[in-house]
């Protein structure tokens, strides 16, 4: 047998194998429909007569209003079934808070909470498939945005929580301008309006941390206008200190830097339109060019840590925590890592004293409910519990920023966390929650981070920077 015929035979066998396998590939019906029994196993509409938070509510389970929702509870108290929850609160303190909340929820509702913790990356990667399974999690943290929550909504995997939001009073406690980040039209096509698909126990706000010792030393005051802030940066630089501790090797921190400055000159109406692609809000606006100019000037003036291009975010805040630099512009998530007495926090001031301008922020990764769960009622109870005052208290005591207002005394006065909680509440009350700009289009994160690196290194002009982003925006929004 010659080498050729041998080759031919091998090739033929391989081809046949490929053909066979291709033929076996699953069709476009991706929904796994095998008769797997749900893990919960509980009856539909498992009641909760003992529920303090929502015992009298009814008909909130899956948005399918079938007239007289049967609020009858056959299994109240004793065995309310098992609620499977996937979350990404993996870190020590956070994990403890969630365990504590879960235990209290279990006691009160007679529902066993089966918790599974994953990293955010793992959760994002697996949640799509899991939510399509009959034994998938009943409640899970689903990342915000078109690519994650939007895709799940489009696939019909998430429960519409709009009715629950009304009945549980979420709409009163959280403005629409905050909840809209978890809203989609029913087909998942339109972001920012329509049905509500998630709610988060934690909040995020980006603002200015300052080193109190350095401020005292240099005789500085917390600025009340944006011009004062700019002057303050100059003063610090003149004194030979680094004004803003910054590290942009990971590329995303610059989104917060640029976005914060941009937010001073725009309003939430524009931001919502831009992010949710409503109306004809584009990126090519004089305000956005001006913000780019300001940030570039700050680089030229040496307001940022030297060689920030090569410093990672973690190294950067570690430096700040170790006392380097007078200010750091970043999110509430590092508040627990800094000395509570040595550091303070303030919101970005507006052009006039007393103005509250939009502040980048929002809710943390929201909890969502699987559309086909048999534990719908319990799941909504669980979400309501996770945004309750008790939850806010535990989060705050653990050093985190709760999305709701924590009760009096949960946060010690004069601490860094007190400043952060105040800042968030001010932002909420003035309805000035801004946006992470990278949400605008599926590719905006990549384009924005790359262009910001060029802007900060001085290799692109502010107008050209804005033009490139406008192109990305138009390409996606058509």
């Amino acid at each position, binding site marked *: 047998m010659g080498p050729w015929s041998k080759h031919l035979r091998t090739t033929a066998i*391989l081809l046949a*194998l*490929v053909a066979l*396998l*291709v033929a076996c*590939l699953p069709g*476009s*019906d*991706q929904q796994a429909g095998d008769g797997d029994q749900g893990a919960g196993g509980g009856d539909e509409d498992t009641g909760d007569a003992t529920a303090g938070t929502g015992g009298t509510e009814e008909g909130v389970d899956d948005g399918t209003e079938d007239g007289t929702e049967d609020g009858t509870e056959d299994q109240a108290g004793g065995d309310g079934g098992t609620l499977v929850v996937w979350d990404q609160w993996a870190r020590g303190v956070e994990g403890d808070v969630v365990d504590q909340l879960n235990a209290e929820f279990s006691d009160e509702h007679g529902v066993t909470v089966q918790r599974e913790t994953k990293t955010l990356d793992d959760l*994002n*990667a697996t949640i*799509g498939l899991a939510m*399509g399974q009959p034994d998938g999690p009943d409640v899970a943290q689903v990342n915000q945005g078109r*690519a*994650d929550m939007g*895709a*799940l909504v*489009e*696939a019909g*995997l998430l429960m519409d929580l709009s009715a629950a939001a009304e009945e549980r009073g979420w709409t009163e406690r959280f403005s629409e301008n905050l909840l809209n980040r978890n809203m989609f039209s029913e087909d998942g096509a339109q972001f920012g309006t329509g049905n509500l698909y998630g709610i988060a126990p934690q909040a995020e706000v980006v603002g200015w941390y300052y080193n109190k010792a350095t401020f005292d030393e240099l005789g500085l005051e917390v600025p009340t206008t944006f011009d004062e802030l700019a002057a303050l940066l100059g003063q610090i630089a003149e004194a030979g200190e680094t004004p803003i501790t910054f590290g*942009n*090797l*990971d*590329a995303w921190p610059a989104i917060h830097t640029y976005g914060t400055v941009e937010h001073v000159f725009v309003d939430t109406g524009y931001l919502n339109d831009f992010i949710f692609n409503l109306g004809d809000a584009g990126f090519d606006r004089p305000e956005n060019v001006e913000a780019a100019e300001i940030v570039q000037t700050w680089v030229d003036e040496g307001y940022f840590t*030297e*060689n*920030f*291009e*090569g*410093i*990672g975010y973690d*190294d950067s805040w570690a*430096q700040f925590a170790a006392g380097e630099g007078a200010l750091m512009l970043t999110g509430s998530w590092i508040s627990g890592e800094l000395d509570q007495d040595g550091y303070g926090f303030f919101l970005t001031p507006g052009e006039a004293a007393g103005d509250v301008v939009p502040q980048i922020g929002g809710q943390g990764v929201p909890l969502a409910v699987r559309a086909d769960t048999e534990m719908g009622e319990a799941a909504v109870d669980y979400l309501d519990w996770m945004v309750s005052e008790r939850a806010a208290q535990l989060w705050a005591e653990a050093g985190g920023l709760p999305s709701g207002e924590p009760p009096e005394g949960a946060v010690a006065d004069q601490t860094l966390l007190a400043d952060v909680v105040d800042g968030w509440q001010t932002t909420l009350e003035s309805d000035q929650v801004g946006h992470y700009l990278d949400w605008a289009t*599926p*590719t905006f*994160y*990549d384009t924005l*981070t*790359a*262009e910001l*690196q*060029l802007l900060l*290194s001085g*290799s692109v002009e502010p107008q050209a920077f804005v033009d490139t982003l406008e192109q990305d925006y138009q390409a996606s929004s058509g």
Partner: protein
Amino acid sequence: MAVGGVREGAPASSREAPRRGQGGRVGHAGSSGWLPYALLALPALVYGTFVVFPLASTVRVSFYDWNGLTPPVFVGLGNYVALMGDTLFWGALVHNGVFLLFYTVLPVGVAFLLVVLLTQERAVRGLALYRVGLFVPQVIPMVVVGVVWRWMYSPINGVVNVALGWFGADPRPFLGDVTTALPAVGLVATWVQYGFAMVLFLAGIQRIDRALFDAAAVDGAGPWARFRHITLPGLRGEIVVALTVSMIAAFRVFDLVFVMTRGGPANATNVVAFEIWRRAFQQREVGAAAAVATVLVVLILALSRLVLRLQESEQ
């Protein structure tokens, strides 16, 4: 059949016996030709399940617009056409080309240098120690290598900047600068990759008859002439293996880039494998990601084939 003829025509003799036995064996194997395939079934099943099937799935998905959740929409060659005009993809491909230098050319060069040094006639003291020590980078997981080198390149007390500081240089953000990021990542790849080529060459050199070197020395050949005319031709097989393997590595590099720069700054270290990840997991464009993956596989196969061809033609 000759064997059959012999069997029938000639009476049994001591010389025919084994042949006869052979003939019988041949006949047996012929009648049950399924045996080799039966033995192959398990490996074929494993290979089919874990290699051929995913490969075929990827190719199939590349013809769809699919976010991984909702039903896929057939778009024919749409993903490939879009790829043709995608500057990010082409930029990434160019960077992979640059990585050829750092993954293939430099490591093979370094390996040669080390092999020559380690195989001097006068045995180097502690040779085994050197060999092991020099091979160590190859053994460390890539992610660990990436994390460690990210620290080492840091402008805040990173070893590289501290060392350069001894010569009066100011610290530089090597990984954050568009001009230095790609070579900075590339050199780490070289540091990892040369050990593999070195071990291959060391093994190969032991196969070469020492007498050749001695004879050449007697004939007055210097070290360079001996290297050029004995070592190099003797190592041809190993060189081809080193080139092929490192070339494949250059085109599928992901871990180093992901850990050290995530393709930045401003896409200066973006590579094709990173584009796959970005599309599949960040933008949930699974179809587009599969198209990039398919192109990458075809490219790697073509390049490997080219290297093997070159070897065959030289022989």
